[in-house]
């Protein structure tokens, strides 16, 4: 059989690592339910104007602080705005905080963690001290300080939460890179002339990918909670932009007159956080059974 002829032959079937992991994940019914919920939530956020019963900012002056009814399924707030509509629009903020802030955190964390783990020595010492300094502050306090310096606004919320959240992943990546760099395939890459950067990008980070996926899914809910907390404290997104935390904050004053006002954004928050957390747990088991006690 010549090599040229071979090139046209269908290559043998193969199963990639991630395919195997997905097969394992599919066996977990709860995880699939969470995945479906998250996908639906993302669709709701993207198509908010098509799904929401009322336009954003529409005020029904005939129903102020009304309870659930056929007209307003989840009731209205103090300006007569439909709460379901606001929750739907608020999902955009919560999800984008989860994704964008976490993207910032992962970029910083993976980069610094890989550098510290790969080079060791003085570079590791410096980066490890920086991590310890960042991690020694209570996260929310640190985020408040950053928001205070940068000022309120959606973009600044992303930045504040991203800059606060990178230390955990940096530590995990550092430890994993330290372990991986001793493997012989890294030495093989060096023996055939691979530069440090190529070794990190081709060998070390891809082998950390399953850890990164797990850490990210576990970190997204806490980022969503940080945003809610910041908005609750009045430092996050500003009215009239709706976010779940901001809604709960505003509803506080009307707990007696319209208790459902605060309950529904709270339920949305709890369900989203729970879905991400349960999915993260299941992903950890599916991607690497050895990580069970991460």
């Amino acid at each position, binding site marked *: 059989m010549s*090599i*040229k002829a*071979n*090139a046209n*032959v*269908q*290559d*043998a079937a*193969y*199963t*990639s*690592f991630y395919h195997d992991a997905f097969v394992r994940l599919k066996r977990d019914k709860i995880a699939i339910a969470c995945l479906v919920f998250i996908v639906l939530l993302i669709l709701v956020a993207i198509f908010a104007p098509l799904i929401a019963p009322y336009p954003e900012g529409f005020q029904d002056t005939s129903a102020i602080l009304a309870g659930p009814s056929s007209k307003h399924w989840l009731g209205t707030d103090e300006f007569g705005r439909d709460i379901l509509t606001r929750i739907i629009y608020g999902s955009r903020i919560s999800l984008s905080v989860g994704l964008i802030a976490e993207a910032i955190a992962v970029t910083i964390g993976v980069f610094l963690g890989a550098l510290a783990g790969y080079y060791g020595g003085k570079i590791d010492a410096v980066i490890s001290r920086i991590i310890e300094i960042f991690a020694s502050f209570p996260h929310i306090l640190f985020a408040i300080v950053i928001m205070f310096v940068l000022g309120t606004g959606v973009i600044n919320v992303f930045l504040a939460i991203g800059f606060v959240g990178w230390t955990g992943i940096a530590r995990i990546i550092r430890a994993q890179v330290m372990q991986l760099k001793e*493997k*012989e*395939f890294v*030495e*093989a*890459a*060096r*023996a*055939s*002339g*691979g*530069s440090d950067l*190529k070794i990190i990008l*081709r*060998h070390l980070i*891809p*082998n950390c*990918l399953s850890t990164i996926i797990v850490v990210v899914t576990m970190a997204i809910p806490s980022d969503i909670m940080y945003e809610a907390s910041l908005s609750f404290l009045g430092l996050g997104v500003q009215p009239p932009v709706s976010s779940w935390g901001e809604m709960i904050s505003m509803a506080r004053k009307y707990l007696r007159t319209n208790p459902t006002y605060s309950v529904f954004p709270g339920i949305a928050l709890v369900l989203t956080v729970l879905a991400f957390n349960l999915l993260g747990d299941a992903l950890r088991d599916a991607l690497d059974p050895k990580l069970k006690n991460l």
Partner: protein
Amino acid sequence: MAEQEVLMAVENLNKWFPVRKMGRARGYVKAVNDVSLQIRRGETLGIVGESGCGKTTLGRAMIRLTDVTDGRVIFDGQDISRLSEKELRPLRRDMQIIFQDPYSSLNPRMTVGDIISEPLVYQNMYSASERIDRVRELMDLCGLDPVYIRRYPHEFSGGQRQRIGIARAIAVNPKFVLCDEPVSALDVSIQSQVINLLMDLQSRTGIAYAFISHNLNVVYHVSRRIAVLYLGRVVELAERETFKNNRAHPYTRALFEAIPQVGFDEQQKKAPLSGDLPSPVDLPSGCVFHTRCPYTQPRCRTEVPDLREIDPGHYVACHLV
């Protein structure tokens, strides 16, 4: 030996690892001490010795995967012992390595095709489409079916994985391949297949091997010349036939007599070595073997024996020979 024939010459090589306590060096692990040897083009030099004698460190230093403390490594007429990683990069095309553990030497997240073509990528050899043809050719050459090019390492057996490692090493057409215990992690039946593959590749392409192993039968089978290492020193170096009947160094004799023999009529000629390997941090004075040698003389404790040529091509480091 004509200069032309020598591919790699190791001259008075030392490799010491500092032992740090509280940040300061409190001594050194003297893994390789004053080793000199030569490897000719297309030949196999066997390097044997027990665990911890510096075989692997010597190999790593030869292809500069580790820095050299002292001495020179001359590869293809060029001293590579002081070159930086960047200066070494183009030279890595000519020297490759095959690892002991076929599980940790292949990246589990890469396909076989990506693994084998990796050195080609780093060395900028061939275009992307030619590389795929080259990988298929290499897989065929190493006894792997090229249709498995997109599979992952975990889908192969240990012997097949070692073939993948070999294909990766020879992808760039190296002149020299360091085989670091390439068969000791494999089943005996697979060992012979892999050894035959290595010897077959050598006869086709004229690669020179340094074959590191603690398995004397294997080394004896593949090598033209054999160097025996003890505590980071070469104690005996000769053509392989010499080791059959004419072993000179007491350590070599003990080592070869320790090979298990099948049958009852062959009676044990000598008592096996007693004692443990001394610590490489605190090397014995004089001859490193004097603590375990059955023939120790007073001068062995004080004087370091040189590696002397007792017969043409037969070098021994012992005062008594």
